[in-house]
């Protein structure tokens, strides 16, 4: 059998020479025959006649000899492809339209599939990831979170469901750098961490129980960034500084430690996932740079605990076991604040959260778009088939098999689909990049997403499925073309064809409606973005540069830096804040007003600043005075409130001088958009950095500098000033305030891209759909038009007739879409960033759609003019 295949392949490899040999062989045979007949003494005429009669036999000899090797199909395929390519090349407009539509649709589908594949389908790159679970405790107030170290100890000793556990915590560390210091994202874990995950380092080794605590493991990317992948880094030491909570002094202190580098993890290794979710604002980080074991003092609790279940232990069984162990702990050391239960979440679920639902939804949406694109291409092909009926009939009459005809049409469809797929690779690549860039904050595992063989297999499968979807109907309709039928009853309309027309019309109406809804949505998002970009924030955003500094250092350092930077030439003002505005983060606290009993304690945004902050951002002090460096945390500490807080709680009196339990109000400042551009102003309170030394110390402070000219030029001088005051401070996230403001709209930007792309695709598809329907109706009514023209009809009247049909379909679609969009209005108003539908957007979208419809209908309608009555009538 194998040898037979080998022989077949050898024949295929000989190609044209194989047939040449056959011809030679058969010619020789005939010549011998001729010679034999002549030798028998037959007259020349008879000989020639006898040889001529052999023609059929020699032809059969050649054909069947070729067939014997079973390569006929390939030969026909090559023929079909050549013929198909020629046919397609003859209609560049049609081919380009179809290929581009398919490229966009398959490319978009593949882009989303590649993200679905990388994020959902591929298992986490850890050893047996299905047995890893995230362990959390239920605390008395109902919140789910950290695990007590004593509980973790008990789990380790008593649990029969788990192989091992690891507790860890996410934090930041600073490392010396030529420019001052660099901030790293660090994970502090116990020694079980790496053996739990079961991932091998690419260099050196990881730490395990029994190792000293002053060791560190680097991430592949940090190794590349800081050491250019130098293997000699193993065994070298690295000094890290960071804020550590001092339980005795009850405050955050700065600590320096030196670690020996043990190993380096692969570039793709990131654990825990979703590091960005732990930090907010300018701290949003995607990657961990370094892992260090927990220090000599065991912490009281762990923010994160991951466990590995023993094989075939269920999550529920393990959870109830941990619950039992916890209750025993409660019996040993009873306390009101002890956790009241354990929650286990499979790691994959914990990592992905609600993302799979969103991605599948997106995948479904883009799949619908692809289906609509297929339907359109089918329509276009059907229109073409109608035009090609004569060709088909002629070929069938000349003996082309019905199957062969179907195959010819399918080959053309596959060629179109593959052409679309080839371009689609580019679309998929670009689309995947765009999705990851725009959604990197939201999409976990984004760093693992690559275009792998599965993606390409998917793309190829999509191409063939679409080719069959849109190619089958025209192919079958071509095969059904019956010569007699076509000749006798040209353009006859059967019930079946009337149903087909209804389906096609309905499809186009739906496409127009969908395009309208999406285009209105895109228009609303664009309008909202424009509105927010122009919105008044209550502060100056021009010529301001922001620089984030960690770790937290004593207040005196901030005052010193502020003073130094303010004196730098070119700088107008400088000041610190702990939380930069417009970063969607904040710190909310409650308060009470002395001498005014309230049922519920009101809340306010708390901000920690240095006095220069208000001048830098141009926030006016409307009453009282600014804070000064002398306003310390000593009782009573000075506070500033914003106008909203003053208006809400002191409507008829001067708040300056009033006492709150958080301090004494010394002044009132102007309102600013603190958290987000689209959120109304909240009540706010400002105090100086001398207070609240412990609050969220990891976050550090942001220096805001207002400059005379372009803000970027001042950065080097600011860096120098910071280094002189405290070389341990790492400066990062250097951005202008304009950038901060633009970046704060990333979510709306993402929506704009997504809905904009979808709307664009839907518009394109609707227009092509309209074009297809009109082209089909024109080509199937050619005879009717010819008769009308022959009878003296005006071409313009006919064109109007055709265009009117298209416009009618579009109008119905618009009506439907408009109704849908109006119905969705309450939904849009309820969005996290509400959209307010308006007449202008609706009207503008409708005008654009109708204009496109007019073009899409006029193009095929113009063909009516080109109908030559004599030719069209004679065709039949």
């Amino acid at each position: 059998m194998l040898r037979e295949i080998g022989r077949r392949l050898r024949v295929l490899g000989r190609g044209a020479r194989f047939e040449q040999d056959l011809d030679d062989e058969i010619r020789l045979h005939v010549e011998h025959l001729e010679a034999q007949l002549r030798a028998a003494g037959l007259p020349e005429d008879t000989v020639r006649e006898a040889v001529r009669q052999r023609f059929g036999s020699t032809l059969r000899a050649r054909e069947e000899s070729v067939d014997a090797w079973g390569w006929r199909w390939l030969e026909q395929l090559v023929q079909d492809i050549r013929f198909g390519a020629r046919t397609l090349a003859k209609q560049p407009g049609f081919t380009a339209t179809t290929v581009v539509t398919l490229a966009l649709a398959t490319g978009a589908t593949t882009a989303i599939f590649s993200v679905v594949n990388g994020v959902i389908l591929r298992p986490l790159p850890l050893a047996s990831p299905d047995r890893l679970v995230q362990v959390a405790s239920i605390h008395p107030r109902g919140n789910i979170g950290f695990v007590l170290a004593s509980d973790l100890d008990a789990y380790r000793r008593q649990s029969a469901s788990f192989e091992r556990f690891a507790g860890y915590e996410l934090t930041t560390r600073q490392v010396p750098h030529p420019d001052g210091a660099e901030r790293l994202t660090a994970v502090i874990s116990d020694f079980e961490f790496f053996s739990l995950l079961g991932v091998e380092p690419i260099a050196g080794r990881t730490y395990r129980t029994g190792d000293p605590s002053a060791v560190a493991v680097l991430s592949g990317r940090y190794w590349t960034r800081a050491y250019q992948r130098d293997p000699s880094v193993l065994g070298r030491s690295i000094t890290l500084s960071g804020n550590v909570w001092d339980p005795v002094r009850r405050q955050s202190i700065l600590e320096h430690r030196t670690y020996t580098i043990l190993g380096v993890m692969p570039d793709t290794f990131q654990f825990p996932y979703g590091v960005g979710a732990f930090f907010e604002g300018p701290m949003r980080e995607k990657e961990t740079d370094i892992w260090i074991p927990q220090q000599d003092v065991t912490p009281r609790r762990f923010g994160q605990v991951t466990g590995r279940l023993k094989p075939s232990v269920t999550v529920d069984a393990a959870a109830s076991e941990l619950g039992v162990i916890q209750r025993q702990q409660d019996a040993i050391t009873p306390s009101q604040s002890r956790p009241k239960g354990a929650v286990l979440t499979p790691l994959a679920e914990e990592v992905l959260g609600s993302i799979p639902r969103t991605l599948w939804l997106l995948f479904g949406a883009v799949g619908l778009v692809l289906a609509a694109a297929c339907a359109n291409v089918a329509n276009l092909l059907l229109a073409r088939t109608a035009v090609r009926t004569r060709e088909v009939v002629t070929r069938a009459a000349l003996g082309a098999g019905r199957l062969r005809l179907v195959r010819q049409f399918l080959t053309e469809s596959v060629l179109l689909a593959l052409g679309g797929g080839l371009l689609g690779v580019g679309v998929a690549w670009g689309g995947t990049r765009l999705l990851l860039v725009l959604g990197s904050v939201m999409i976990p595992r984004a760093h693992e997403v690559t275009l792998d063989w599965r993606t390409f297999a998917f793309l190829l499968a999509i191409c063939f499925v679409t080719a069959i979807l849109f190619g089958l109907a025209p192919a079958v309709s071509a095969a059904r073309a019956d010569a007699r039928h076509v000749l006798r009853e040209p353009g006859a309309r059967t019930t079946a064809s009337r149903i087909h027309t209804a389906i096609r019309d309905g499809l186009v109406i739906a496409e127009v409606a969908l395009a309208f809804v999406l285009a209105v949505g895109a228009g609303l998002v664009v309008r909202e973005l424009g509105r927010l970009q122009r919105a008044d924030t209550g502060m100056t955003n021009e010529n301001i540069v922001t620089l984030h500094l960690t770790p937290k250092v004593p207040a005196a350092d901030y005052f010193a830096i502020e003073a130094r930077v303010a004196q730098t030439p070119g700088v107008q003002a400088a000041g610190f804040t702990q939380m930069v505005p417009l970063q969607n983060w904040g710190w909310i606290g409650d308060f009470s007003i002395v001498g005014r009993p309230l049922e519920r304690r009101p809340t306010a945004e708390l901000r920690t600043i240095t006095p220069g902050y208000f001048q830098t951002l141009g926030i006016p002090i409307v009453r009282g005075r600014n804070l000064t460096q002398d306003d310390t945390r000593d009782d009573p500490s000075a506070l500033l409130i914003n106008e909203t807080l003053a208006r809400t709680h002191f409507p008829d009196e001067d708040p300056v001088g009033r006492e709150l339990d958080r301090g004494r109000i010394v002044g009132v400042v102007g309102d600013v958009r603190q958290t987000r551009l689209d959120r109304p102003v909240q009540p706010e309170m400002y105090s100086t950095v001398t207070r609240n030394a412990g609050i969220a110390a990891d976050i550090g402070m942001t220096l805001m500098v207002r400059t005379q000219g372009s803000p970027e030029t001042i950065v080097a001088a600011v860096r120098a000033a910071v280094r002189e005051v405290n070389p341990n401070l790492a400066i990062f996230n250097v951005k202008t305030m304009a950038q901060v403001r633009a970046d704060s709209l990333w979510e709306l930007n993402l929506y704009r891209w997504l809905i904009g792309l979808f709307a664009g695709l839907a518009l394109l598809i609707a227009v092509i759909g309209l074009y297809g329907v009109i082209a089909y109706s024109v080509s199937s009514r050619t005879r009717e038009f010819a008769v009308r023209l022959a009878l003296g009809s005006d071409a313009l009247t006919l064109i109007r007739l055709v265009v009117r049909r298209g416009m009618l379909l579009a109008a119905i679609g618009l009506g439907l879409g408009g109704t849908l969009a109006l119905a969705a209005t309450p939904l849009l108003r309820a969005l996290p960033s509400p959209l307010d539908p308006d007449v202008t957007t609706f009207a503008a979208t409708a005008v654009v759609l109708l204009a496109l419809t007019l073009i899409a209908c006029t193009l095929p309608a113009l063909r009516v003019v080109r109908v030559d009555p004599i030719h069209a009538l004679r065709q039949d």
Partner: protein
Amino acid sequence: MARDLIPPGTLHVLILKTLARGGELHGFEIAESIARESGDVLTVEEGSLYPALQRLLLKGWVTAEWSTTAGNRRARYYQLTRAGRRQLETEMAQFHRVNGAIARVLAM
């Protein structure tokens, strides 16, 4: 020249047998040999001979080589392979068995 056509399915055995007897032959020689040996009863047309030869090549029962004829023409010469010889023996045995049986039935 009203000669009988070869019953379907037997042409390849005839070719194999002819090659077994004659050694290396080209297509025309095979056709001639079959006609001659059958006493001019059986005739082989190109339309069936050459496809049959290709099928035998595919099966690996014969091999072919280009060589020159006595008249100095390029011709493809066919030769039986070992597998072809085995196939011939099997089919001959089967043929004799079936034919014997048919003959016995017809003789009754």
